[in-house]
């Protein structure tokens, strides 16, 4: 007589760890793989600062250092594109059949994308740090001190995770690498339909309305505590940013999970 069959539950954390390591290897083992993702936001930061630096002369601009204003934007942009790359890589894995093999593994599906998203968050620290260092070298200020820097890194990392979830949702929906531009342009829209170039009081027309309802505006304000506003004791820029990130994570996470659940059915 035999007893009930007890299925051994595979350890979950090692699965995430292995997939995290695999996504890191994609950049660690390919020489120069991180270079475009690092140089692009630096070029944009320098270009935008050079073009629009005089905007600080307008009444209502909260700093006289435009590069201080732009550094957090470029950090979020870099982190967002690193996150969106998760979706492009997943689409490649789906197209090449690798993800089908992962789907038959006895692990919950969310874990299959948790590793790559963690990998993106790890990778985004490189361009974020390079952008920050170049910005500081060119005169960006740090009124927020260490706590401000913490806010900047938390905002960038969590925004990267949100962009990763968006990328996963798009990859699961379209299942082709051709959806890559859609993933990137989602990040582009989220970042630039905000107080990207000027503060809200200087925005005109439809963009003022768009920035008002765009949660990324709050994430950007949270990150700007490092280089523009400093940490306010009332946490007036921290709490809305954290809530915006939590909301985006819930909505985009639900979209990603829905897409993953539909796969293979």
């Amino acid at each position, binding site marked *: 007589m035999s007893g009930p069959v007890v299925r051994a539950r595979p350890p979950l954390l090692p699965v995430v760890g292995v997939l995290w390591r695999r996504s890191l290897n994609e950049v660690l083992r390919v020489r120069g793989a991180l270079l475009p993702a690092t140089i692009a936001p630096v070029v944009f930061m320098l270009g935008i600062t050079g073009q629009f630096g005089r905007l600080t002369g*307008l009444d209502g601009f909260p700093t006289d250092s435009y590069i201080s204003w732009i550094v957090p934007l470029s950090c979020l942009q870099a982190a967002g594109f690193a996150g969106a790359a998760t979706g492009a890589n997943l689409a490649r894995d789906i197209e090449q059949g690798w993800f089908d093999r992962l789907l038959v593994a006895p692990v919950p599906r969310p874990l299959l994308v948790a590793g790559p998203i963690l990998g993106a968050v790890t990778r985004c620290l490189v361009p974020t740090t390079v952008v920050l260092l170049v910005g500081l070298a060119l005169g960006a200020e740090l009124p927020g001190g260490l706590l401000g820097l913490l806010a900047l890194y938390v905002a960038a990392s969590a925004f990267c995770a949100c962009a990763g979830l968006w990328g996963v949702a798009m990859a699961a929906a379209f299942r082709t690498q051709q959806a890559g531009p859609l993933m990137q342009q989602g990040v582009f829209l989220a970042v*630039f339909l905000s107080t990207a170039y000027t503060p809200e009081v200087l925005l*005109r027309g439809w963009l003022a309305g768009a920035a008002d309802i765009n949660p990324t505006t709050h994430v950007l304000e949270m990150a700007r505590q490092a280089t523009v506003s400093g940490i306010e004791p009332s946490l007036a820029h921290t709490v809305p940013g954290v809530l915006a990130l939590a909301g985006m994570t819930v909505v985009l996470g639900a979209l990603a999970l829905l897409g993953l659940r539909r796969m293979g059915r």
Partner: protein
Amino acid sequence: MSAASGTLAREGRVVLALGRRSLTIQFRKAQLLMPTFILPLMLLAVIASGTSAAQGLRGFPDVASYVAFIVPGTIIQGTILAGLTAGIALASDIEFGFFDRLLAAPVNRVSLVLGRLAATIGLALLQSTFFLLVAMPFGARYSGGVDGAILAIAIAAITAAGIGGIAAAIALRTGSLSLLQSLFPFMFVLLFTAPAFFPRELLNPILRDVAAYNPLTYVVEAVRGLLSGTSVGDPLTGFAAATGLALVTTGLAVLALRERLRTQ
């Protein structure tokens, strides 16, 4: 008809056929076209709305339409993307073997480069017209009239061939699709070191000095002048800068092709 003019006519047909093929492929793959048509428009919308308060700055020229002031930057951005697309498509042809088959064809090999650049010119003509038309409902007014707009589009198309020449030279020299795909930020240095979205006088002082050596500075100012019907930029200088860029980079692409054939 002399033998020389006969050969020229035949090579002309080759260039047109290759150009048509490149354009057809691009229009059949919407994902290749989306960044070149949509991305510049998105940036135009955001910059026009996000920085229009700049008109209040001392030294900003008195412009009737801020959108029309920004549009030349969008057009130049489009030419960069169109040129880069040409390089990516050429690298793709090289990686997947189609270019080797073209090399076996009994045609002048310079025509292979010119055919690719003809497609870039065609794409830039469509793109620039599209940008100018789309900007109109959003407040862009072109006081330079239709003549000014046509000349501006022509200068933009020649510039696109110039950028396409750089991209083609790199594609022919390296044959690497992934390298071309990662060139995007480097090409944008050309855009940001020109007064694409702001008057030259109001650029950062270092950037202002650098801008004097960037041919796109004269192109964007010429386009701005032609569209606005003012003397912001000299059309002849812009035309000369665009043509010079196109000739030099096409020469570089031809040299890269010769080098490729020599080392193959």
